[in-house]
């Protein structure tokens, strides 16, 4: 009979799930991992909740680092940010291979479990990269730069290092509308992530006086830099999918 370990949708949660499933000694083929409150329940399976504790997650992390190397650690972390429901089980399957093979595992894409992890990694990385390109900040009257995103995967933590480098002397916030999470950066300092109970704080962030002016200047530039003889909406759409556009200054007010 299959035993399914459920864990919370977070990096630590998944690692605790991996720990409990592994230490249950039921055999890899008899256990599986699932996120709490997602998907349908399976018949003929026993559900167990993985108890979350920082110690367990730390232990698993240390084991991955020692046996499978840094690169594997990073890949597992990024995969845990993915939006796919089966990510916990896929990470488990990857680790089964990784502990056997060692650091070389990250290149062995011919193994399906490794490929699945690679694929999740790629989609998370791609979305983070896209949002680094496409996030738009608005300057508020208190001088804070405020950007809103609505990503599929939980990528704002991956965007933060780039902007803390680039906008080091600015106060800025990147807010993930779907997860109510934000990255907050203080001028000249570091950054942190925060979960927010609701988005009432947004009402307090009024635009600064020149925000409107630069928004319209940017729209003018965006419109005039295109060559009319080469108009190609399909090409534009492949590079800049519609799902990003509601958050972008230059497409605001455009009918879809």
């Amino acid at each position, binding site marked *: 009979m299959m035993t399914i370990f459920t864990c919370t949708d977070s990096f630590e949660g998944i690692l605790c799930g991996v720990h409990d499933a592994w230490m249950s000694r039921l055999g890899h083929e008899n256990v599986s991992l699932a996120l709490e409150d997602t998907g349908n329940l399976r018949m003929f399976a026993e559900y167990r909740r993985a108890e979350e504790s920082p110690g367990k997650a730390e232990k698993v992390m240390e084991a991955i680092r020692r046996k499978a190397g840094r690169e594997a650690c990073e890949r597992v972390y990024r995969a845990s940010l993915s939006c796919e429901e089966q990510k916990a089980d896929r990470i488990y399957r990857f680790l089964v291979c990784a502990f056997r*093979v060692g650091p*070389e595992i990250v*290149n*062995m*894409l*011919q*193994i399906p479990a490794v*490929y699945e992890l690679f694929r999740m990694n790629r989609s998370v990385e791609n979305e983070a990269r896209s949002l*680094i*390109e*496409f*996030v*738009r*900040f*608005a*300057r508020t009257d208190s001088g804070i*730069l405020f*950007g809103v995103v609505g990503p599929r995967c939980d990528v704002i933590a991956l965007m933060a290092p780039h*902007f803390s*480098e*680039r*906008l*080091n*002397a*600015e106060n800025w916030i990147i807010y993930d509308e779907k997860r109510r999470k934000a990255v907050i950066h203080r001028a*000249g300092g570091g950054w942190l992530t925060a979960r927010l109970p609701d988005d009432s704080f947004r009402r307090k962030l009024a635009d600064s006086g*020149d925000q409107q002016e*630069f928004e*319209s*200047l*940017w729209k*003018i*530039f*965006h*419109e*005039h*830099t*295109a*060559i*009319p*003889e*080469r*108009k*190609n*909406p*399909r*090409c*534009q759409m*492949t*590079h*800049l999918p519609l799902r990003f556009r509601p958050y*972008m*200054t*230059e497409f605001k007010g455009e009918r879809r």
Partner: protein
Amino acid sequence: MLIQQEMDLKEKLAILSDAARYDAACTSSGVERKGKPGQLGSTAFAGICHSFAADGRCISLLKILYTNQCVYDCRYCVNRRSNDVPRAAFTPDEICRLTMEFYRRNYIEGLFLSSGVLESPDRTMELMHRTVWKLRYECGFNGYIHVKAIPGADPVLIGQTGLLADRMSVNLELPTAEGLKSLAPSKDRARILGPMRQIQTGIAAMERGIVPRGEPLKGAVYPWRRQFVPAGQSTQMIVGATPENDYQMLTVAEALYRNYDLKRVFYSAFVRVNDDSLLPALPGGPPLLREHRLYQADWLLRFYGFTAGELLSESHPDFNIFLDPKCDWALRHLEMFPVEAQTADYGTLLRVPGIGVRSAKRIVAARRAGRLDFAALKRMGVVLKRAVYFLTCGGRMMYPVPMDQDFIAAQLLGEERRRAWDIGQKDSYRQLSMFDDGFLNPVPTAEDRVSAALGQM
């Protein structure tokens, strides 16, 4: 006659971004620079695109002209002296303000500053230098800056601007001296290649640790040691304005990469903005497919180890409309195929159609650890649609394919023809026909043939 009137920033931006849009060289790549405390900005080696315009081209830099007033009368150019268009000029402060505020909001990756020639090349270059200096030192801008070198400007001015910019470029515009003479009579090739050589030697000296010195300009102080054009230089050629063929264009590009250490050559499909008797009429719109093929070939030169002479020759001077340059080359060299994916070295893998730089690297990394099959190759990003005809894996091809030029060409055409059609004939009306519709009816693939032969429909 110049009518003076006060223009606001919006009108100026509209006019001067309109005037700059035909320059294709808009990338922000080539230099990795960390942020500096108290300053705004950093750069990424691969460059970052921030938006895509309605023509599908990336918007990375704030691409503007300093002014669209020009003393020249180049026939292909929208800003030529004899055109009756509204003229405007920014002030250095306006450009700084736009760049800083756009950058802060993550709209752009930096500034691309070009200009029409105002009064004289020296005067223009000086204004551009002043703008960029202000941006770097008064505003504390640490992002990407691309500046055009104006042919004919004093080398001191170009040298000093190079200390502030990340990339510089001089546009070759037309690949041959005759072409330049007919369409841009007031420019000459020697004056274009002069600054190009100057920038090249400056970069080379910088790499040996020598900062090119010149007389520092009046009032311009450089508070810290800077690099000279660290992201290298680029240039642009117009495709289809003069009768040069693809072979000529590609050999010129190759010579530029080899002799001038250029980072990029850009190709810009000619857009007929002026009604001039010396310009070609282009009833089908700009030659976009030709431009596309040239870019494909350019990639083959820079990343795949091809030479211009391998892809084209005097007797075969133009690219195939229906096949991309790599497939075309492979079909003419079937004696080198099929290649064995398990053992072939990296350079050989790169020459297989359907395998790119990334997938070749993944294959090399993965096969160290175990055997591969076609499904694994597909997962590594190999485009099997093209690669199956040129690849074996474990000594076998995916399907039994005769190594016959005509057969493989016919197979590849079905797929490639529709893509070429999309680029070349976009949005054009075409009568649907039930019988002869090469662009909509797919040619049966090898898979179809096998399943038909085995009766597995």
